């Protein structure tokens, strides 16, 4: 559906002497039809710039952008506008027209595409029903809540039956509850309409909630990509690890760390392995004490990822054997202390 080939974006520097700012460096990725693809990274990592290259709101300084078989980077202005009409987009700050009603905002993309009055009159109610705002047709954006504004944005983006929807931080300006609603709507649209969705976020939680695959960006580069489960279970790049760790949020209070006796382990369980009583068996066969200090199980899709922080006490040889025993039977063991 989307193919980015070695895309780089450089912004001219503001002061004359300074070098150009490289917002995106040599990014390549492929998004398949019908999938929800996430791009995650901290602010300033270039993820917004990257998503803007997909519809050429940001023209790459080098590289090629191919959407649905058409190389956008090779098109003239008029053809590009026609292709853009087939790509929906929603924004962090919604970008609705303040002087127009919900109805007119939703109809805007249709008008651009040259739809007839009759078409607009038929299509807009469908769109508003889809996003659950049928009763707000006459309201102005200023009268809506953040979540409702984003729903108008979604209605507008879907007006021309696009096959691709680009979402630039769609929930970052919303509170938790509202963003869950918007994400659920996006997922529903993906499943019901078979729409391909690219979603930018700085929160792994958003990625985990809706995405099938994800690319991680840091310093303008894509440092890692894979299925969401893979990224959560086996993050390779240090930045990805940090992101995943932050999501699991397994911080022990400092005083706890100081007072610990024995060896402190962080154990990662994946899938079925999470279902065998590894810790119990380790305790019995190596004759060590096992104490669980912290733990969490995350479900990505319907697969589990479990993280436990445990302390082992006993003879040095026993602890060593226990660590080896656990390491053999789980995904990853990190010795935090001792």
């Amino acid at each position: 559906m989307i193919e980015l080939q070695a895309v780089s974006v450089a912004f001219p520097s503001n002061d004359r002497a300074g070098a150009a700012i490289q917002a995106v460096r040599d990014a390549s990725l492929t998004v398949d039809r019908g999938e929800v693809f996430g791009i995650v990274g901290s602010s300033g990592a270039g993820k917004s710039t990257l998503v803007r290259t997909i519809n050429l709101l940001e023209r790459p300084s080098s590289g090629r952008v191919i959407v649905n078989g058409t190389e956008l980077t090779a098109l003239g202005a008029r053809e590009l506008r026609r292709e853009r009409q087939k790509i929906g987009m929603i924004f962090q700050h919604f970008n609705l027209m303040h002087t127009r009603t919900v109805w007119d905002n939703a109809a805007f993309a249709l008008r651009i595409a040259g739809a007839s009055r009759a078409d607009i009159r038929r299509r807009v109610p469908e769109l508003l029903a889809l996003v659950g705002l049928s009763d707000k047709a006459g309201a102005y954006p200023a009268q809506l809540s953040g979540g409702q504004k984003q729903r108008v944005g979604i209605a507008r983006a879907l007006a021309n039956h696009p096959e691709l929807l680009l979402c630039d931080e769609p929930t970052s300006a919303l509170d938790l509850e509202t963003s869950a609603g918007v994400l659920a709507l996006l997922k529903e649209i993906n499943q019901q309409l078979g729409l391909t969705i690219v979603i930018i976020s700085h929160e792994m939680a958003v990625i985990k909630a809706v995405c099938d695959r994800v690319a991680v960006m840091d310093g303008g580069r894509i440092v890692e990509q894979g299925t969401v489960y893979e990224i959560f279970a086996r993050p390779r790049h240090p930045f990805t690890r940090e992101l995943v760790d932050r999501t699991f949020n397994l911080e022990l209070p400092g005083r706890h760390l100081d007072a610990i006796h024995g060896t402190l382990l962080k154990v990662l369980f994946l899938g079925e392995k999470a279902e065998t009583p590894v810790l119990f068996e380790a305790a019995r066969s190596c004759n060590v004490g096992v104490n669980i200090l912290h733990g969490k199980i995350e479900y990505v899709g319907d697969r589990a990822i479990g993280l436990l922080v445990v302390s082992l006490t006993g003879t040095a040889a026993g602890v060593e054997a226990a660590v080896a025993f656990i390491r053999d039977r789980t995904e990853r063991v990190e010795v935090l202390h001792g």
Partner: protein
Amino acid sequence: MDSLLAMLPDLVTAFKETFLMLGVSTAFALIGGVPLGFFLFITQRRLFWENRAANAVGNVLVNVIRSVPFVILLVLLLPLTQLLLKTTIGPVAASVPLSVAAIAFYARLVQGSLCEVDSGVIEAAQAFGASPAMIIRSVLFREALPGLLRGLTVTVISLVGYSAMAGIVGGGGVGDLAIRFGYYRYQTGVMVVTVAALVVLVQVIQVLGDYLVRRADLKAK
């Protein structure tokens, strides 16, 4: 009192002249200032018709006109007026420099209110494949309309002030009347009446402008 009553026909004539000057120059502010303001805006950096050279030329032109004090512009443009109208006297002739000043003045205010339009909305329109003409017509113009009307009110009121100087080149008008009778002839009564009339005129323009802005802006609140 009698002298004031006797002034009445003069006052009516003066008001007619003022309205003529205001009408012509406001019309040109709209016809010339709106396109020039849009031009200055869309040729700016990172907008869809980015063109630094054209933008610089437009900016310098507007700045030059705006930096010449109006009394001097009035005299400076006499040859142009002569060329266009074959005369330099009368309210229509005075409307030439007034219009030039009005175009430059309003263009800046138009550019300013376009800058106030949420750049995200322009970006959204581009993302949906809107053409430049469409963005100008249905996004920029619509979203900036309250600001455009507010700027127009400011412009017309400034023109009331400028038109008072038209007497210098024989343009007539209310301001001219006040100077000639109220100042040169020491008829303080005339001065008071004309000033009062101008205060009322400016009030009416402001109220009318506010009303139009409110109508255009009702929705955004």
